[in-house]
């Protein structure tokens, strides 16, 4: 971005025509071609194509993009989870990222995880260790049915996206680990850093003087 901007600056300084700026602006904001690749998770074939009219401006203006926020469904599911579990009881959703969405809104620990670079410390069965299990409407109906039967789950709610069950036999809870650095210590460090930033010029002057004296 910065190097391309620098190149455009040089170009405009060489040619120095007003209309050129207009052409560049229209091209950048509207035409803006992109070479893109795409592959579905379970597919092996990769699609390559050139997309025209693919600027951030145009896409934001036309609100093109995937949307993951469905407040009605997410918030209602989170409310059910919150009402049927204690703060340390675990929630699991068969779709990883939705598990985190619901858990974060309900303020409950999750058996799901994002940031796939680091996996769980030990293997565990999230169905057995979770008090609340959230199935999605796209889950395999047979899998849902057999899990419900095997674990003797009780349905506690549903909406357009989710079917929410409670595992009454589950005794697992997330073990809250005490903070390595408590908030008061972090606040002190932040204040110290802020003070250093505020008085930076004075400290630099003092250090300069000290070095010169040596």
């Amino acid at each position: 971005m910065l190097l391309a901007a620098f190149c455009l600056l040089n170009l405009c300084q060489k040619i120095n025509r007003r209309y050129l700026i207009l052409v560049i602006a229209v091209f950048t904001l509207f035409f803006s071609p992109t070479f893109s690749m795409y592959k579905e998770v379970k597919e092996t074939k990769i699609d390559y194509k050139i997309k025209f009219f693919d600027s951030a401006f145009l896409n934001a203006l036309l609100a093109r993009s995937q949307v993951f926020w469905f407040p009605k469904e997410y918030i209602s599911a989170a409310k059910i989870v919150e009402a049927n579990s204690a703060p340390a009881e675990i929630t699991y959703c068969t779709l990883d990222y939705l598990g985190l969405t619901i858990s974060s809104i309900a303020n409950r620990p999750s058996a799901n995880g994002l940031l796939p670079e680091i996996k769980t410390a030990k293997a565990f069965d999230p169905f057995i260790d979770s008090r609340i299990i959230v199935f999605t409407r796209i889950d395999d109906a047979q899998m849902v049915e057999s899990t419900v039967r095997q674990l003797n789950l009780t349905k506690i709610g549903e909406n357009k996206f989710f079917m929410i069950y409670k595992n009454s036999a589950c005794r697992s809870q997330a073990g809250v680990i005490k903070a390595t650095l408590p908030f008061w210590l972090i606040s002190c460090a932040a204040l110290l850093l802020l003070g250093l930033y505020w008085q930076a010029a004075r400290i630099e002057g003092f250090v300069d003087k000290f070095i010169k004296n040596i």
Partner: protein
Amino acid sequence: MSDKSVKTNPWNFYSGIIISSLLVLQLARWIILPQFMDIYYHLLTAQGFIQAGGYSGWDFWQYAPMGRPHIYPPFFHLALAGFMQAGVSPVILAKLCEALLPVVFLVTLWKFIKNHYGPQLAFFSVLLFFASFSFYLSLLNHIPATLALIFGILSLNQLFKKRLLRSAILLTLVFYTHIGISLFFGLTFLLYGWLNNEFRKKAGGVLLAALIFSLPIIIKELSVLRFMHTFGFSLHERYLCQVKIVESVLGLIGLFQALKRGKEYRLFAGMFLASLIFIIYPYRFLSGEGYYP
């Protein structure tokens, strides 16, 4: 802006229009925000910190009940935890972050380029920001990375003003906010110092001070490194790369021009070389944060 100022400096006026339109578009998208899933990871982490009573090096709030080592630098999560403890709803926090931080990034970048390289280059930078949709989306999705980019630009700004301690403090904040971006800015300071001897000692000093201030988090990250079992080149996102064709060609020409022109322009070349660190995450290198330089 008055007629007089438009005539004397039209570039600032044009940049202002672009930045304002980004702000309007972001606010218009308020209802569909938070658009991405990463923010829930950050919210849950902040809730974990609240439960722990501070910074915890063990991620017990995900993959519960087993958990996993927590590697993410804590600045953003601590800020979120602070707001949540003050009573701000997590959903509102998520919406605010996704709506406003890309605008703050663009304003910071524009001011930095305008002050140190002139309003015309600042205008072209702002214009090209609006060219890449994937870069724009990555700013929305990778909020801590966006925040770290902002701190990094502010740190360079202080370096150029020769306020070295402030520069070091801001670079330290980059280290406490995002791993990838801290490597990027660490290398940028190193390479810019190497390419521009006027700034060699200053950039080196700032980097050294920031590294010393950041030692606790660097040690923590290194100690958890053995638990990492995959990097970006084995994640599915590598199949979603998007390359801006014209901008990439212009960028390559710009790289040679930056090396040939005055020493101050070598910052851009240094940034490009530093961005090669993102290659292990091909999507981020080609379509995300790597688009920035």
